[in-house]
């Protein structure tokens, strides 16, 4: 990854950083394993007893923000990756607000990137299926 000189972050960079930071803070502060939040079961899992694509994301964020990376990856590898990306983006945006004049150069995703992302989602779901298998 290369970096380019850049000015202050854009509105959307700020918005995405704020969203990521809020999600991480919520995961750190909210008791997701106690009622009432624990009562929000995944409807897909409730209907099929199989995890959906997004199952484990909340716990992955919760473990990641507390530094328990192994547990975060165990809950959802993709969730742990997203939590890390959210934290890095929020931190980098804060640094840019503070005057850091560099931003990562982001090229439009090529075919290999698109396939890699699709495979990552599928691989994450297969992992969740196998992990929850009896």
């Amino acid at each position, binding site marked *: 990854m290369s970096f380019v000189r850049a000015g202050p972050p854009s509105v*959307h960079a700020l918005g995405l950083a704020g969203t990521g930071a809020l*999600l991480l803070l919520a995961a750190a502060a909210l008791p997701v394993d106690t009622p*009432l939040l624990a009562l929000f079961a995944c409807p897909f899992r409730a209907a099929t007893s199989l995890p*959906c*694509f997004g199952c484990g994301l909340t716990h992955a964020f919760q473990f990641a923000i507390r530094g328990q990376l192994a547990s975060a990856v165990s809950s959802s590898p993709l969730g742990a990756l997203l939590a890390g990306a959210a934290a890095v983006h929020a931190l980098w945006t804060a640094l840019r607000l503070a005057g850091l004049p560099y931003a990562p150069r982001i090229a439009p995703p090529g075919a290999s990137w698109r396939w890699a992302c699709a495979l990552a989602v599928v691989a994450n779901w297969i992992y969740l299926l196998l992990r929850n298998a009896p």
Partner: protein
Amino acid sequence: MAASAFGARRESRPGNSRLPRRGRHRAHGTEAALAPGCLPPDVLEGAVLARCPSCHNTFSTEQSGRQTCPVCGKPLLVPEPNVAPPPPAAELVREGAGTPWERRAELGFWTGWGQTLQQALLEPGRLFAEARLDRGAAQLGFAVFTTSVFWAVGQILERMLLHGQTERMRQLIAAVAQNPDIAPMLKRMLQVQTDASTPEAVISLAALTPVFAFVLLYLNAGVTHAVAALLRQAKRGFPATFAACAYSCAPLVLLAVPACGWIVGTIWLVILTGIGMKVTHRISTAGAAASVLVPYLLICCLGFLAMGTLAVTLRNTLQP
């Protein structure tokens, strides 16, 4: 019969008006000059080099079209010389003048908001075509304002209008909770539900709706843009997706309607997001629909797949 023009246009030397209509062969030592049946070497000043398809000799000519080969005398057709293709022209993109909300400085706050809401609900194509991609902050403001205000109003109205039903549900849960087997969980649910129904809790939740609206908007835009990028439909970047998602929040005014408003509003939002993606990214209807609906379709397909698997497993288990 066509001759193949294989040379680039050569520079003509001025003052050589004696060049005949018929082409003449290339200079001494060239492939054409060494070929059998060639004319004597001479100074060649044709503009285009051509090869006769009959005798395969090369000659030079200043004109294209029908003519005869200077070597074998057979008729041939010299095509137009290859001209370098023009560089790809940049796409002419007409940037919109701005939605009424983006022009609220001149129209006024409420006029801008009302006209934007009206266009989003009744003329979404026109609204999305007018949206400017450099006005992300204004679009964010419209979505957060519209969603949070009507969401908060809906929560308060729901508490007031559906209070009796909620109270009956609470009494039912309290009655069931007397059972010692299921008491701990239901008592906890009852306590949480009672706490969440207090006026303080309702007002607190209503005050937090801008934060919820902000997070949900960016999550929706992020997921939609990720799917669109995977499907190669994100032609104009994240700002275009964000504009589509932000103005698609207009139907969430229905959140103020208790009980059923959120259902209608959410379905309307999904449809408007598809229209918005089509217009802001300038993609096909199918591409826009796929970008918006693929996450839902994947979940539904997985659901059917899982149901089928469970049904087969159950049938195999029950068979003697």
